[in-house]
């Protein structure tokens, strides 16, 4: 058993330190003999045991005696720990590749490959930023009527829904990736503004009216809002200029946005979005699968394409 554990450990160390390669090779020979049902007669275990126990003996006689007496048992424990560790490492790598988090889809525990947890961070509905305190497993598109929100390429087989906030950092991080995704693939794309900060609440009725006035120009407006400084889009005068620049009838939009009917529509849509159990932005649904926080592009594409991704 010791040979196997030594082979694994020494092989890893040998990648970085050439002086361990001979030992790793020796361990391999021992393992090879074992897997070919021959006894390991290279003396490798005895040599390593003597070296390890000898090293420990210079520090503590008691510890050295314990190690020597229980060497095989400790080797077994180390082996099992290593196997478990390899399994969890493999699982972590798999999860990171597949979902952008070592812990799985939308799981926000520590991940060495994303130590700051950037791929799971959201702008919380309370207005602050963080990994959120909601239940990631409960986010769902079921029950939400996406027809109420701006959509394009309706009828396409695949569906992408982005629920985000114009002035939130993480939505701003995810937006260009989602845009890249929909430009490269034929998808039914829906965008829903879910402001988690008060200063952009006023954009809800404006967005509603703009889409109502001209659907094509709405997507330009969307791009411009995400491309602008956060401070600027908090100012209505700046947004009016944007609308005018795009070619909207600003006066008509302003009248529309203050109307009771618009107010009702905005409230209705807000209620509809709450059905997703959203607790922070961005929240991206790709063919119904909810992704909380800005994920790497490969994750979006892989979920969209399924097996075709490979």
């Amino acid at each position: 058993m010791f040979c196997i554990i030594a082979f694994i450990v020494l092989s890893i160390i040998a990648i970085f330190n050439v002086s361990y390669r001979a030992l790793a090779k020796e361990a391999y020979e021992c393992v090879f003999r074992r897997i070919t049902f021959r006894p390991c007669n290279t003396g490798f275990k005895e040599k390593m045991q003597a070296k390890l126990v000898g090293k420990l003996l210079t520090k503590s006689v008691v510890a050295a005696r314990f190690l020597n007496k229980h060497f095989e048992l400790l080797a077994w424990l180390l082996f099992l720990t290593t196997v478990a560790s390899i399994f969890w490492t493999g699982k972590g790598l798999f999860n990171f590749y597949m979902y952008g988090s070592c812990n799985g889809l939308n799981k926000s525990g520590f991940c060495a490959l994303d130590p700051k947890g950037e791929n799971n961070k959201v702008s919380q509905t309370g207005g602050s930023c963080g990994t959120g305190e909601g239940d990631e497993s409960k986010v769902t598109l079921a029950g939400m009527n996406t027809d109420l929100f701006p959509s394009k390429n309706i009828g396409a087989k695949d569906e992408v829904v982005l629920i985000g906030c114009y002035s939130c950092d993480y939505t701003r991080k995810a937006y260009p990736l989602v845009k890249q995704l929909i430009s490269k693939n034929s998808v039914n794309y829906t965008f829903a503004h879910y402001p988690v900060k008060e200063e952009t609440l006023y954009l809800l009725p404006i967005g509603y009216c703009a889409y109502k006035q001209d659907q094509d120009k709405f997507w330009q407006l969307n791009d411009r809002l995400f491309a602008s400084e956060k401070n600027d889009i908090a100012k209505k005068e700046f947004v009016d200029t944007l609308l005018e620049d795009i070619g909207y009838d600003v006066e008509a939009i302003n009248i529309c946005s203050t109307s009771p009917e618009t107010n009702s529509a905005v409230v209705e849509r807000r209620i509809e979005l709450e059905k997703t159990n959203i607790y922070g932005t961005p929240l991206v649904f790709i063919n119904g699968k909810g992704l909380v926080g800005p994920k790497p592009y490969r994750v979006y594409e892989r979920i969209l394409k399924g097996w075709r991704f490979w």
Partner: protein
Amino acid sequence: MKQNIVDVVKIRQDFPLLGKEGVYFDNACQSLRPQFVIDAMNEYYNEYPACGGRSMHHLAAKVTHKCDEARDAVANFLHTKRKEEIVFTRNTTEGINLVAHSLGLKEGDIVITSDKEHNSNLIPWQVLKEKLGIEHKIIFSKEDNTFDLETYQQALNNNVKLVSLGLTSNLDGVTIPAKEIIQLAHKAGALVLLDGAQAVPHHEIDVQDLDVDFLAFSGHKMLGPSGIGVLYGKYALLEKLEPFMVGGDTVSSSTYLTHEFLPPPEKFEAGLQDYAGIIGLGAAVKYLSEIGFDFIEQQEQLLNKYITDALHTIKGVTVIGPEDPTQRGGIASFYIPQKDHHQIALMLDETSKIMVRSGQHCVHSWFHAHNIPGSVRASVYFYNTLEEAEIFVRELKKVVSIL
């Protein structure tokens, strides 16, 4: 180099490695080299790295001269009748093989060895037994592992052509009563070949006084370089021997069909020689001669007595060979049943850089016959100190206590 050195501390200053690399107690395998020997070899490579005995230019002449000097030094060291009795070989093994394959042994001839021979003095006879049909007789040692003269005497007869024995055993350090053995052999008409690998570095050898016919030994156990050895042979016998390896520098002339061998030792020294090795060996014997074997034996016995006394206090330890350490030269070979000898050696190295040999020391036959897996062998030389012996004993006790 110092004259008549008896101060170990001063002697140790001649050895670049001592004091830097832990405790070196593997001298039976290979000794360390003094700077004097290293310098002699470096001088060859730096100042006259040419062929000896061939070219006529001044560098070649210097090589020839230096090699002659070395041959002289070795001849004086062994008290030979003439320097031509010294044949340079690669090592003891080659010397023994040279005799084995050149002596003209034939079917039915008997070769006697002991039960404690190094593989170098066992395998050649086993091979000749298979190839030529010679008979190989083994003289088993007495209970204390010393040579059984009585059994030996009984084994001698007219068919015994050669008695080939290790003068000092690398297993336990026991030296055989060579003079009596040789006298008895000669009386029975047999020649005697001694494996001197473990004896020549530690004891004064006078080949004329011993009247030994052949003596093989290596440079690397006696402060000399590795890859160089010596076969001493009585000149008259060397003249009769057919060379084992032939070729360049073994003949005075040749035609497409014939050749004329040079006299000994040249006819046995085929091909380009290890000049640096020969010169280094010459320096080593000079150094040893100046140290003196009285001091060497005295220092080895002092250390071995200390080590042996301490070994007897460790539970379970069995020392191979006679109880009396003075009969075991500088070797203390021991084992502890159920405790792995390699593990002990490795742990000594790991804890305090104490270097000893473990295993069967190329005497597998003895270990197999006695059903002992192996031993730990501590072998000291004159440059080792009592302080090192104390460290060895202290660490050994610590290691054994946890196994």
